[in-house]
């Protein structure tokens, strides 16, 4: 099967709407078809991968740990927009430790998070063949 460059653009907070969870589901499906996948986290979307999420107060499932499994699905490119973090008073330290294992480098764990500025994000988006926005 031909491989295409897919980008999933996440702009919404993880809870309150179903966008983040739906995006994650589609990402997992696309991964099952061996596509070249990257994720983008922009605007409130950066909250999707913050550490220490606790959903007990809203009675919803906390699915944030699922992002940690994406490395197992060979998803190793998670672009996070620097400006979006800064506008929300967040730093890269507020994000979960998301890694993938490099089979060609003795299964060394490498970070999947790639910090980019707005301009760089636009350039990465321009390279994509399929862009899905959530």
């Amino acid at each position, binding site marked *: 099967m031909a491989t295409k460059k897919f980008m999933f653009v996440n702009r919404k907070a993880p809870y309150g709407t179903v966008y983040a969870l739906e995006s994650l589901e589609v990402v*997992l499906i696309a991964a*099952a*078809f061996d596509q070249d996948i990257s994720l983008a986290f922009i605007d409130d979307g950066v909250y999707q991968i913050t550490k220490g999420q606790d959903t007990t107060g809203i009675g919803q499932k906390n699915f944030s740990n699922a992002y*940690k*499994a994406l490395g*197992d*699905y060979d998803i190793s490119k998670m672009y996070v927009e620097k400006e979006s973090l800064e506008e929300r008073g967040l730093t890269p330290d507020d994000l979960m430790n998301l890694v993938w294992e490099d089979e060609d480098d003795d299964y060394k764990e490498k970070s999947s998070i790639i910090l980019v500025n707005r301009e760089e994000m636009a350039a990465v988006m321009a390279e994509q063949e399929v862009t899905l926005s959530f």
Partner: protein
Amino acid sequence: MASLEINGQSIELDEEGYLVDLGSWTPEVGEALAKAEDVELTDEHWDIINFLREYYEEYQIAPAVRVLTKAVGKRLGKAKGNSKYLYSLFPYGPGKQACKYAGLPKPTGCV
């Protein structure tokens, strides 16, 4: 809606035989789900089922077969981390079938 009777309790199943309430799972429920499909669970089956439950506990998703295969290889050794072995235990597909007995939802992307 289908259901499973166990120790006088009725456990709800969806149209494909997966648990509606994941919290209603016990090892006995796993046995009964397998028995309903004429499968006798061995220790080897349980290794995979327990592994799936731990995986779900940690990541909140049921892994795709490819991911399961890789992860089992890492955890239980190369001899078990291949699809031939997993299909010998779960001929209807390790994702689909083992997840059902483990009380997990059907893996995302599994058709």
